[in-house]
């Protein structure tokens, strides 16, 4: 495509990074509805898109943003949208349809404070919503990024995961990542040897339907329970089969850790700083970071946890990551300490302080 020649270091906001990533990933159309802190994705996209023959449609709400995105994907285009907070709540209706029909939508979520309108700033309170929202079983892929480089990398990857496995795919970031400026390296995926998974139209293929080819008859509604069960069984099986291929995580110093810190997203940065600082002091602390929150790196976390004495879950929510952790560690019995801060940022110093307390056995 030659949008970006070679590797290019740049300082920009996370929202800008997403727009660039979508562009180099070959996204052909964005559908969107404004919401803070996601707005600048659209704002950059509307500046970049016309220069590269890409399209944009501002819709009347997030329901429409989600359903038009579905429409775009159905034509075989890499289509995406972005949202946050109450918009993400509404986005669950279209994404439940995408989940049911295996439509490879890509949604970027910039989490903000919740519940309700709450704050336009920041949180990690949309984890449960993004992983399991809707009236289904959460057959989605959710990448939790922690830096602009990752926002860029995983936005590109999201299109490939979506189109390869046909599950709705989310890039889950937050208001800090959206709004802050930091450096990243832009690149053209092709030049890095990243092949973009080819897309394929669901509707509008060439030929006369019913003659040259079967017509597309796409539905999400079934008449009897057993019909639905059959579809779900197949989808669940394919989801579980895919999981090991796409699970991603990061870990450090897990061997014999007195405390293993578990964090995701931007909070992971604070957790990692805290852990490295104490590790540098010679304390036995490590971290485990799920990058895919859905599917969750269960085995990997279990192995890391098995080598640790205690756990500490740190998040800007009241136990949403914690629930994932407990669910995936069922059967183990390490004590889990927590640092739960719904809607507010977590600093490395705070994590350090909590870690010291735990390490010194001062915590009740």
């Amino acid at each position, binding site marked *: 495509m030659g949008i970006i020649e070679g590797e290019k270091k740049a300082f920009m906001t996370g929202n800008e990074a997403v727009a660039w990533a979508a562009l180099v990933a070959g996204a052909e159309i964005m559908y969107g509805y404004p919401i803070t802190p996601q707005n600048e994705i659209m704002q950059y996209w509307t500046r970049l898109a016309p220069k590269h023959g890409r*399209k944009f*449609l501002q819709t009347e709400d997030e329901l429409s943003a989600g359903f*038009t995105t579905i429409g775009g994907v159905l034509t075989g285009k890499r289509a995406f949208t972005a949202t946050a907070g109450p918009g993400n709540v509404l986005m669950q*209706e279209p994404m439940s349809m995408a989940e049911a029909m295996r439509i490879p939508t890509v949604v970027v979520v910039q989490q903000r404070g919740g519940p309700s309108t709450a704050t336009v700033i920041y949180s990690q309170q949309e984890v449960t919503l993004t992983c399991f929202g809707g009236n289904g079983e959460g057959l989605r892929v959710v990448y939790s990024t922690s830096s602009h480089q990752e926002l860029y990398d995983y936005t590109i990857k999201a299109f490939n995961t979506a189109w390869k496995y046909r599950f709705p795919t989310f890039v889950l970031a937050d208001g800090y990542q959206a709004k802050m400026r930091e450096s990243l390296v832009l690149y053209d995926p092709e030049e890095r040897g990243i092949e973009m998974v080819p897309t394929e139209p*669901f509707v509008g293929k060439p030929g006369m339907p019913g003659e040259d080819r079967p017509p*597309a008859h*796409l*539905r*999400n509604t079934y008449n009897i329970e057993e019909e639905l069960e059959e579809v779900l069984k197949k989808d669940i099986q394919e989801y579980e089969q895919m999981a090991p291929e796409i699970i991603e995580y990061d870990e450090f110093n897990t061997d014999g850790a007195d405390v293993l810190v578990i964090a995701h997203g931007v909070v992971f940065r604070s957790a990692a700083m805290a852990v490295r600082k104490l590790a540098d002091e010679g304390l036995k602390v490590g971290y485990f970071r799920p990058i895919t929150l859905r599917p969750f790196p269960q085995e990997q976390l279990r192995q890391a946890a098995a080598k640790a004495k205690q756990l500490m879950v740190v998040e800007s929510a009241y136990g949403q990551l914690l629930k994932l952790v407990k669910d995936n560690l069922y059967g183990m019995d390490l004590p889990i300490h927590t640092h739960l801060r719904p809607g507010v940022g977590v600093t490395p110093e705070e994590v350090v302080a909590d870690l010291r307390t735990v390490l010194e056995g001062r915590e009740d």
Partner: protein
Amino acid sequence: MDIQPKMPKSWNAATKPHKFCPGCGHGLILKALGQVIDEMGIQDRVVFGCDIGCSLLSWDFFNVDTVQTHHGRTTPVMVGIKKARPDRIVIAYMGDGGGYAIGSQHLVNAATRDDKITVILVNNTVYAMTGGQMAPTTMPGQKTETTPFGRDVEQAGYPMMGPEMVAAITQEGAYVARGSVAKFRKLKEYIRKALENQIAMRGFSFVEALSTCPTNWRTNAEKTWEFVEKIMPEQYPLGELKVPVIKEG
């Protein structure tokens, strides 16, 4: 003589008899649409979207690419398709509940934006699929499952005048009409014009079709005809509300 049913070619014969009730107007509207698709020779270019409501029963009705969407969300799905593939002829097929209640933000915004799509909206005065509750189009005094004593306009509101609304907010290139299954030829004409208007990319195209629902109306054939032919048009005047001036060349 080997006589075959005169189904439109674009119908999917394998799924016939279709799933609509005896005497259901959906069948007539889709027959009109099928004939128009045949006559225009566009079967391979159409993408048909059906809503949740009895319209969902048409998910495998045609031999054309079909997407069954969510209740009220057929408009945005079709808008999304059209924006991405303007060469397709998209038809959003929905009920009065889907179009005027839960999906009305999509309808009015697509109309305002002048999206080049065709919406066919089936006005049967009830929420049929769910068993006959009041719809935005329920007539004053009409008994439904949620207006058991008749629609009291003071409490439950007045009927929605959809084409009138769409006509008020659309551009000159838009096409807006209200037809009826009781006027089959006119209905076909309106649908044809609506599709031609889309193909010419002149503007948003909208046809409301007065339809029958003997099941929820609890009417026999006679009363069914009477309701759709005589009573409904008193509230819902038939005709074209907006016809684009066709520029030659």
